[in-house]
């Protein structure tokens, strides 16, 4: 690894200042599970590593029944799935937080880091998109809120400007009769990068028999995570049925624009989007009905 400097700011202001001092030669460190591998492999380089874990706002989880869940950007995965409020209200997030890497990785890796690393295969991003999450960003020019589906701009690229840091992610409070799920397909049962991943969130009516709304998002099938607006919208107002789910899966497959590489082929990935859309929608429906 190239030589770097290291700093541990204690406040958001200090963090922004540190990041801004080196422009695009500064890199934010949360769990480090992507950053350190990339710095070591020469895929990213930096002069300054800014460890954000000592900034309180980046390291807390708070839940409020009306405003929803706020996840500090550097909060490791294990704290998310160990949190009673998250476990009770956001099973779709728990799905992804508990399958990222190994137990060791989950002790370090954060949802915020997953978002900022902006890999097309990021497991945490589709459920955040499906749940309508918003990224809270602070920089030298103040703060801004960015819907998670608009955050990533390409493989490893995102909307953050030099000096900006992701402080937290807000996930809205779950509406009544709602449920979400994330599944990825990997050849092994752990420790793999998604060949394809799908996050689905649904809101049903009081009877549990009709969709009020739905959001679907994909991993590993395009240069960025994909928000499948048409697929989700196709379900709104429809009765829950295999046909409706099939149509949503078909639309999601249309949004998949994958490549062939060592992890899978175009054909396989598009096929898997269909399979996983069906499966995640069915799990989300069950969860919305309180059946799981």
């Amino acid at each position: 690894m190239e030589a770097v400097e290291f700093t541990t700011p204690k406040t958001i202001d200090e963090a922004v200042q540190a990041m801004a001092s080196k422009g695009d030669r500064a890199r934010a460190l949360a769990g480090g599970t992507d950053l350190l591998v990339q710095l070591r492999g020469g895929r990213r380089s930096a002069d300054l590593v800014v460890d954000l874990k000592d900034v309180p706002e980046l390291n807390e989880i708070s839940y409020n029944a009306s405003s929803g869940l706020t996840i500090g950007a550097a909060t490791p995965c294990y704290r998310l799935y160990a949190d009673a409020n998250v476990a009770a209200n956001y099973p779709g997030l728990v799905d992804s937080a508990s399958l990222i890497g190994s137990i060791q990785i989950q002790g370090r890796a954060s949802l915020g880091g997953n978002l900022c690393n902006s890999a097309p295969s990021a497991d945490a991003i589709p459920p955040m998109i499906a749940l309508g999450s918003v990224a809270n960003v602070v920089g030298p020019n103040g703060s801004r809120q960015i819907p998670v589906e608009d955050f990533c701009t390409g493989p490893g690229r995102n909307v953050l400007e030099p000096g900006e840091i992701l402080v937290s992610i807000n996930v809205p409070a779950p509406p009544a009769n709602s449920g979400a799920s994330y599944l990825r397909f990997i050849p092994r049962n752990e420790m793999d990068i998604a060949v394809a991943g799908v996050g689905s969130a649904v809101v049903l009516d009081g009877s549990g028999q009709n969709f009020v709304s739905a959001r679907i998002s994909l991993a590993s099938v395009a240069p960025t995570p994909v928000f499948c607006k048409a697929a989700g919208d196709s379900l709104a107002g429809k009765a829950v049925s295999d046909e409706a789910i099939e149509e949503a899966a078909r639309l999601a497959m249309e949004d998949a624009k994958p490549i062939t590489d060592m992890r899978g082929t175009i054909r396989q990935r598009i096929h898997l989007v269909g399979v996983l859309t069906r499966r995640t929608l069915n799990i989300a429906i069950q969860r919305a009905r309180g059946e799981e």
Partner: protein
Amino acid sequence: MPGLVHVSTTINGNPTDFLCEPRQSLLEVLRDVLGMTGTKEGCNDGNCGACTVMFDGRIVTSCLVLGVEAQGKEITTIEGVASPEGLHPVQQAFLENAALQCGICTPGFIVATKALLDREPDADEGRIRHWLAGNLCRCTGYDKIVRAVLDAEEKMKA
């Protein structure tokens, strides 16, 4: 070139100070700076678990932690698992159950297993396999490792 950073930490209960470059991983610091070579390197990218240590109460792969991040933390390595009185039950169980062949993955497995059993003393086979999925072993096929963990549970209750 940035200079060395002074880090104060606690390793296996002992207050420890060291100097390191910011780019050095905790694994490098343990092995090359402190001479604690019990923690092994298998991949240096977090995918084999051979370098597993306890870091403020959680298992982590020490190749994916910077040495400078150890400031003020509590670290337990394989060197801190046994006591002066003898082996920890997890170590004894690995030995008795022939759960190691070449032994290079063993320190990581033992640190990870101890962390599991400290919080889940009744973990079943499925949970054990899930918890240890981040620790690769190429020699044993995991059968005797899983049996050793189940045996360690019995030993720890006794």
